[in-house]
């Protein structure tokens, strides 16, 4: 198929952005979306132009590095996939495709389609862990049985890949789905319960400082999440937060 691409380009963090138009020809429907961009970049290199910069790594939907706002949707028109798993069979010959970076104050553009998501790392460093040293001298792994339903719910929350689609798609650029997934995972497991009060307070505080917006329950994040992280996690985080605000010892 032959396609017209309208791609957002920005030379550097402080440069002004613009939309550029490109044509690609003979795209196979079996290609992944990023392989289609590889074809474009080969063309640009051949012409001596600078290729379009975009983030990607594992190309199997798990590392969370790829992003892209495609025709107004985070990770494009398919559901339950990241951009690297999106295949060209979802498009048709003659289509015009708009490709933009994630948009959020807390994700500044680095170059072209690449954004800086280190705000997520800082939220994690504020409390996304269990404070246990890696000595190996913990108790036996089977010492505390965990009900399968709790373990399964914790796992479902833990499958978040930290791609930022939830933020990109939210009209408020809220990071509540991302933060609540980690808060939920650890609040559901006995190992994480000890620190639950401080964890949720610290992570939410950091989230606000990073400039993410608030949640108004539109649910767009859940729809666009490539891993199907449930909105229930946000509800759970709100409960955790409320409880923590009322009961936390001020030290």
């Amino acid at each position: 198929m032959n396609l017209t691409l309208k791609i957002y380009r920005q030379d550097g963090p402080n440069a002004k952005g613009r939309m550029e138009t490109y044509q690609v020809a003979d795209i196979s429907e079996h290609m992944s979306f990023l392989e289609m961009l590889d074809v474009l970049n080969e063309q640009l290199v051949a012409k001596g132009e600078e290729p379009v910069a975009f983030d990607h790594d594992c190309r199997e939907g798990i590392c969370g590095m790829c992003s892209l706002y495609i025709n107004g949707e985070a990770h494009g028109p398919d559901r339950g996939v990241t951009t690297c798993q999106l295949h060209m069979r979802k498009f048709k010959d003659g289509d015009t495709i708009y490709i933009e970076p994630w948009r959020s104050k807390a994700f500044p553009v680095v170059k072209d389609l690449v954004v800086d998501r280190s705000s997520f790392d800082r939220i994690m460093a504020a409390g996304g862990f269990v404070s246990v040293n890696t000595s190996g001298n913990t108790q036996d792994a089977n010492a505390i049985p965990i009900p399968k339903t709790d373990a399964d719910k914790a796992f479902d929350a833990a499958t978040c890949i930290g791609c930022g689609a939830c933020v990109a798609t939210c009209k408020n650029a809220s990071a509540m789905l991302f933060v609540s997934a980690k808060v939920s995972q650890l609040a559901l497991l006995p190992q994480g319960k000890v620190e639950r009060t401080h964890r949720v307070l610290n992570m939410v505080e950091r989230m606000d400082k990073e400039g993410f917006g608030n949640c108004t329950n539109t649910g767009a994040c859940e729809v666009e999440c490539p891993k199907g992280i449930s909105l229930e996690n946000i509800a759970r985080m709100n409960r955790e937060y409320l409880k923590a605000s009322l009961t936390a010892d001020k030290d």
Partner: protein
Amino acid sequence: MSVLDAKIPQGPLKDKWTKHKNDINVVNPANKRLIDVIVVGTGLAGGAASASLAEMGYSVKAFCFQDSPRRAHSIAAQGGINAAKNYQNDGDSTYRLFYDTVKGGDYRAREANVYRLAEVSANIIDQCVAQGVPFAREYGGLLDNRSFGGVLVSRTFYAKGQTGQQLLLGAYSAMSRQIGKGKIKMYNRHEMLELVIVGGKARGIIARNLVTGEIERHSAHAVVLASGGYGNVFFLSTNAMGSNVTAAWKAHKKGAYFANPCFTQIHPTCIPRSGEYQSKLTLMSESLRNDGRIWVPKKKEDVMAIREGRLSPTDLREEDRDYYLERRYPAFGNLVPRDVASRAAKERCDAGYGVNDTGEAVYLDFGSAIMRYGKEKAMVDGITNPTEDVIRELGEQVVEAKYGNLFQMYEKITDDNPYKTPMKIYPAVHYTMGGIWVDYNLMTTIPGCYAAGEANFSDHGANRLGASALMQGLADGYFVLPYTIGDYLAGDIRTGAIPNDSPEFMEAEKQVRDQIEKLLKNNGSKSVDHFHRRLGKIMWDHVGMARNGEGLKQAIAEIRSLRDEFWKDVRVPGKANGLNPELEKAGRVADFLELGELMALDALHRSESCGGHFREESQTDEGEALRKDDEFAFVSAWEWTGDAGEAKLHKEELTFNDIELKQRSYK
């Protein structure tokens, strides 16, 4: 005497590690704060090492080329992690895990290292559960296990098909805790481009800030390389796009010997390639071989009918299917080790039985598992006389609960529904057992330079068993390196901070700048990927699943001329001072072009077959790999002498005191 001293502790195998830990030097907590350690890579080995070292009190600087440590490619490991817990009461033990791993590696691993790995494996599971890693559990709330290839017990812990993700996020959370405390200084989007040696010791690295393009000098008392494997030398592999050998290769060129470079793992169950544009291959977890049966048609006419679309595989009668693994290896069946399964698939496809247009695919069929589980589920649900459709539907639900994310991944890529029609799979490059040579302490031949995880060579011999990479990465990072590095650093407590403006640092920085400038000014006519693809084809054709003397010599000649052509004709657009992915790729491919030659040289030299290294000249009458223990029971450790083709071979003899060397049999 060889220059290689593996420093294996004396005493009985089972006491070596405990005794060693008691014997080695330790650094007192106050002094640890004054000691800097650089860790390159934040996968399971690097992430775990960074977190552990920081917890112990060292000042850690961690580097990754991705935008966050959580992206390292360990995240993509699917199936599980082995540990000798014996929760299933099936007779597992430290010795059995040790034995399986040495045998699985076709007796080319170091006994003492493997035993230590088996010994600490149980701690890994305890540790990860304590960190909040949500492993799969049974209804009673206890941990569940499954089986992997090459073993007869169930010792694999898992979290659906995302075990690597959950373990890496565990290590990342441990790192995050230390980053928050300021004990780890994290350098995201930084790539190590040179190792700096001062006074014969590794004292730092030169790294490029990939966002600003700035070249930075970072000093430390020791450098840990946990930069992963080099499977991307084949261009197409299951590795991430960014996975590369550069950090390891730069260390090699500065004096770290490179061990067993020809030991690469071709994984049997990957989605076959579909076209020239393809950028990577996708793995379908080995765990699928617990329930999937591998087959091709018995008759050529059925093969043709399937390829032409006249016959659906589901319509082919049982008696017309060749379940070739079950036929050839009745004891292990579909769960033979990876090297054996891959070669068997290649044998059938080479004989003309491949089931897709390229002739390079076999079936992985869940039909009988779905019916088996369906019947079981119907019994449990109390459904009497269920119809076949009901059984199938129930069975599909069970299979979805076990492998749902893998089936979804397959369907997204191929547009085929694997619940209804068998998956098509073919072997692909997945893992590299070879790597930087390390002693028992994980130190390379450069004092103060360590290698951990896939980047080193130590534990998997000539073939890695499934679910053992996660085990080794975490064992090295959490439980081995943090202790052994203290033995070396104890000698550095009075050294003080290492200056980063010594002549050695300036010289290393200059080398890096020169290479970048050379690449950008080259102004050739072909892209980096063009050369990478061609290198991959040479490697796959001659240094892939089957190798022979002629082909290897040809590969060496072709790689040499391709390397010349690369430096004459590569075109790298853009600038040095900013984000430039083409420049990053160019540096990596330049290193692959040297490594590829060393791999071929090593494969040529090792004229025996063992594990993943299959020399056509050395096989049994039945076509199985034939080892030559009297000639090749050693580790090849190559020393850089200025040119990839002129590398000098050193041998570390492997002695087996606790295991009898036998021809491997899975029949």
